[in-house]
C-alpha cells in the first residue's frame, strides 16, 4: 500500500524528470515537445496522487491537449528543423548554469530540510470539480472573471502579431491636423 504509493510517485517522478532531461538533450523541437507532453502526463499522475483530480484533468486537457498541440502546430508551421549549436553566449554557460545549480541546490536543501512538511497519504485533499467550482465562483470570482480579459488580450495579440503585416510602412508621414 504505502510502498505502492511511493512506487507510483517514483514512477511518475522518473518519467517527469526523464522527460525534462530529454527536453534538454533533444535537438529537434518536435522531440522536445513530445518529451514535454510526457512530463505533463506524468505530472497529471502526480496530481492524482495528491488528490487534485480536477487539476489533473485540466492538466491533461488544457496543457497536454491544447497548449502542446499549439506548440506542435507552430513547429510544423515554421517547419523548424534541428537547432544548430551556435556559440552565442558565454555568459549563459559561465554564470547561468552555475547560478542555476546553486539556486536549485539551495532550494532543494530548503524544501527537504526546512519545509516543515510531513508525509502525505494518497488524496489527502480531494480537489473535486464541484469544490473547486465553489471556490472559483465565490472566493476567486474576480480573478476568474478577469482571466477572461487575459484570454481576450491573448486572442487579440495573436491576431495582431501573427497576421500578415501591412506593406512595410515606408508611407510618408501622414499629417494629423487638429
Amino acid at each position, binding site marked *: 500500500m504505502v510502498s505502492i504509493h511511493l512506487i507510483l510517485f517514483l514512477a511518475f517522478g522518473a518519467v517527469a524528470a526523464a522527460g525534462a532531461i530529454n527536453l534538454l538533450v533533444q535537438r529537434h523541437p518536435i522531440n522536445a515537445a513530445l518529451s514535454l507532453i510526457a512530463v505533463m502526463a506524468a505530472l497529471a499522475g502526480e496530481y492524482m496522487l495528491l488528490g487534485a483530480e480536477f487539476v489533473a484533468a485540466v492538466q491533461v486537457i488544457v496543457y497536454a491537449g491544447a497548449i502542446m498541440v499549439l506548440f506542435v502546430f507552430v513547429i510544423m508551421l515554421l517547419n523548424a528543423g534541428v537547432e544548430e549549436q551556435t556559440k552565442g553566449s558565454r555568459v549563459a554557460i559561465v554564470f547561468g548554469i552555475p547560478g542555476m545549480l546553486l539556486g536549485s541546490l*539551495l*532550494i532543494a536543501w*530548503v*524544501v527537504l530540510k*526546512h*519545509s*516543515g*512538511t*510531513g*508525509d*502525505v*497519504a*494518497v488524496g*489527502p*485533499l480531494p480537489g473535486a470539480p464541484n469544490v473547486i467550482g*465553489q471556490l472559483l465562483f*465565490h*472566493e*476567486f*470570482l*474576480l*480573478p476568474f472573471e*478577469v*482571466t477572461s*480579459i*487575459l484570454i*481576450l*488580450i*491573448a486572442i*487579440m*495579440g495573436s*491576431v*495582431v*502579431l501573427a497576421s500578415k*503585416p*501591412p*506593406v*512595410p*510602412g*515606408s*508611407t*510618408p*508621414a*501622414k*499629417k*494629423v*491636423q*487638429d
Partner: protein
Amino acid sequence: MTLLLAQMQAIPQSVDYVRILPELVLSLFGILVMVLDPLVDEGKSQKTLGYIGFIGTITALLSTWYMAQSPGIAFSSIVRVDSFSIFFTFLVIAIAAVVILSSFEYMAVQRIRAGEYYALILFSVVGMALMASAVELVMIFIGLEISSISTYILAGFRRHEASSSESSLKYFLLGSFATAFFLYGVALMFGGTGSTNIDIISQKLQSGNVGLLVYAAMAMMFVGLGFKVAIAPFHIWTPDVYEGAPAPVVGFMSTAPKAAAFAVLLRVVFAINAPGRFWFLWVAAALSMTLGNIGALVQSNVKRLLAYSSIAHAGYLLVAFAMTTPENWAAGISAAMFYTAAYAAMNVGAFAVVSHFANSGERYVNLEDYEGLARSSPLLAATLTIFLLSLIGIPITGGFFAKFYVFSAALRANLVWLTLIGVVNSAIGAYYYLRIIVVMYMRESRKEVPVNPVSFGLATALAVSILATLYLGILPNRILQVAQHSAQDLLPQPPAAAAQIPQPAPTSAH
C-alpha cells in the same frame, strides 16, 4: 452551515462592483474599441478609436474618484480600495490617458492597427489597476500577467520592423522567465504560510515562526518583481526592449507597468514586511543607479539612453524601499509613491516628444538627429528640455523634489552611504541628459530632419505632462499628503485582529 454562511458572504454585493469600477469602465471601453474597430474605416479609425479610448480613460478617472468614496475590501478580500490603491490606479490610468493622446499621429504614421492598440492599452491598464489594488497574490499574478502580456504585444506592434518583433520576443521570453520565478516564489510563500492573501501572510509572518521557505520565496518574488521594475541585476532586458519597441509604447511601458509593479513591490516589502530584504534592496539600489547612469553615458540612441536612465531612476526609487526601522517606513513609502508619480510625468512627456520627433519609421532617434532642434522647433525643444531637467533633478521640476524627498527619507533612516552614492550618481547622470540639451541648443543641425507640426492631441499630452512635472516640483504638498496618508494604509496591521491563520494538516492519513 458554516460553509453556507461562508458562501453567503462570498457572494459579491453591489459595493464590490463599485470598488472595481475603474477596471470595469476600462474593460467596457476596451471592448467597445474592439467592436468598433472593424466598423470604422481605415482612414480615420486611428483618431476616432483613439478618442474613444481617451474618453474611456477619462471616465475611468472619474469613476476612480467615485470609487474613492467607498473604500474597503471587495470580492472576499481579493482587492482592497484604500488611498494607496486609489493613488496608483489614478496614476496608471492618467498615464494611459496621456499616452493615448500622444500616440495618435504615431499610429497614423506607422499604420498600426489602432483598434487593438488602444484596446490593449485599456486592458493592460485594467491589469495594472488590479495589481495596485489587489491584496491576493492570485489577483496580483493575474494582473501582472495581463499588463505584461499586453505590453509584450504592444512592444511588437511594428511587425514589419525586425527590431520591434525582436524586442517583443526578448521582452516576452525574459518576462515569462521572470514570471515563472515570481510564481515559484508565490508557491513557496504559499507553502511557507499556507495562504496567498497578503494580510494573512503578513500576520502570519509577524506572529513569529518564519521558515526558510519564506526567505526562499521572498528571493524568488524579488527576482520576478525586480525584473518587472527593471532593477539591477534584473535590468538587463530594458535597453534592448525599449530601443526596439514603438516610442509611445516605450513611454507607456517605462511608466505604467513599472508604477503598478512598484505598487506590488511596496505591498510585498512593507505590507508583508518581507524579512531580510534590507541589504538586497541596498545593493540593488546602488547597483541600478550606478549601472544605469554609467551605461547611459556613451549612448547615442536617445531611446536607449532613456532606457538606461529609467534603470537609474528605478535605483533612486529603490533607495526609498531600503528603510530600516518601521518608523521610517511611512516616509519611505510616500517618497517612493511620489517618485513614481514624478517619474511617470516626466518620462511620459519625454517619450512623447521623442516619439513625435522620431516620426516616420523611428528614423530620427540618434543624438545627431537632435542637432539644432532648438532652432527648427524651439517649443518642442524647450518642452523636451524641461523633461530632461526634471530627469536630471533641477529645481522647480518634479524630478528634483522627488529625488530630494527620497534622499531625505533615506537620510532619516541613516542611509548615509546610499544617499551619497545616490547624489553622486544623480550628478553624474546629469551629464547624459545634458548631452541631449547640448545637441539641441548648442549645435547647428547638419542634416535636414523633418519635424511634423505638433497635433492637438500631442500638444495636450505635452501640456498635461509639463504641468504635472512643474506642479509636482513647485506645489508638491497635496500629492505628498496623499502619499503620506496612503503610506499609513499600507503599513501592516498588528496581528491582534488576526483572521483565521491556517494550520498545517495533521500528517496522519484518514
